[in-house]
């Protein structure tokens, strides 16, 4: 029997998109302005910047939440423009795999720098 006390995946995805949309503006603005006002963007300076625990935490959160938001958005775009069938299934599968890979790689990189 289907559990009717909980919304289904569509509702969950809709809400997740709204929640990520609320968190991302301050997080994204912080990142853009941090880079825009940074005096030194050399590799050495940026390694030191990322190593700061606060920066690393916020950057990792930014990467994770952005990837989630991006996946939800691109999923809808694919559904709108790619004909249903094998092509759409494969495209969505690749989209999911690439996005998860990006998130994992990004968070790993930040942690690697911050914890080394």
């Amino acid at each position, binding site marked *: 029997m289907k559990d009717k006390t909980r919304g289904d995946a569509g509702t969950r995805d809709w809400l997740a998109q*709204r929640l990520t*949309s*609320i968190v*991302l*503006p301050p997080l*994204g*603005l912080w990142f*853009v*302005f941090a880079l*825009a*006002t940074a*005096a030194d*963007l*050399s*590799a*050495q300076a*940026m*390694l030191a910047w*990322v190593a700061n625990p606060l920066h690393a935490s916020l*950057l990792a959160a930014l*990467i994770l939440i*952005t*990837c989630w938001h*991006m996946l939800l*958005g*691109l999923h809808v*775009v694919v559904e*709108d*423009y*790619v*004909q*249903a*069938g094998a092509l759409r299934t494969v495209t969505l599968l690749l989209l999911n795999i690439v996005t998860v890979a*990006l998130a994992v*790689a*990004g968070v*790993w*990189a*930040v942690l*690697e*720098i911050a914890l080394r």
Partner: protein
Amino acid sequence: MDSERPLSPHLQVYRLPLTAVLSILHRMTGVALSFGVVLLVLMCVALAVNPDAYTATASFLDGWAGQALLVVWTAAFYLHLCNGVRHLVWDAGFGFELRVVDASALVTIVATALLTAVTWALVWTR
């Protein structure tokens, strides 16, 4: 049967009012920003395992072509952000009156221009 359902072509067919233009721009900037996410992750990975690759990419981004790219990307970021807030206000149930919709469209465009200008004023006067 499922594959016979129509898709969503629209750009080649309709003449769009401002609200609709912003709507499709919201989607287009979203897609464009995705490439930025890829670049961001690649830069983080480069910093961690191959700082020379980071430096080479940063050098390109410092040049005029790279800066132009970044200006366009930040404009896309701010447009998507401002229009996204507009969407959140709608989701909360406010602002559906046509006059308010048109007004918020203008606010979105002006805010985008202002934020982009402020950002690059900060960068180029560093």
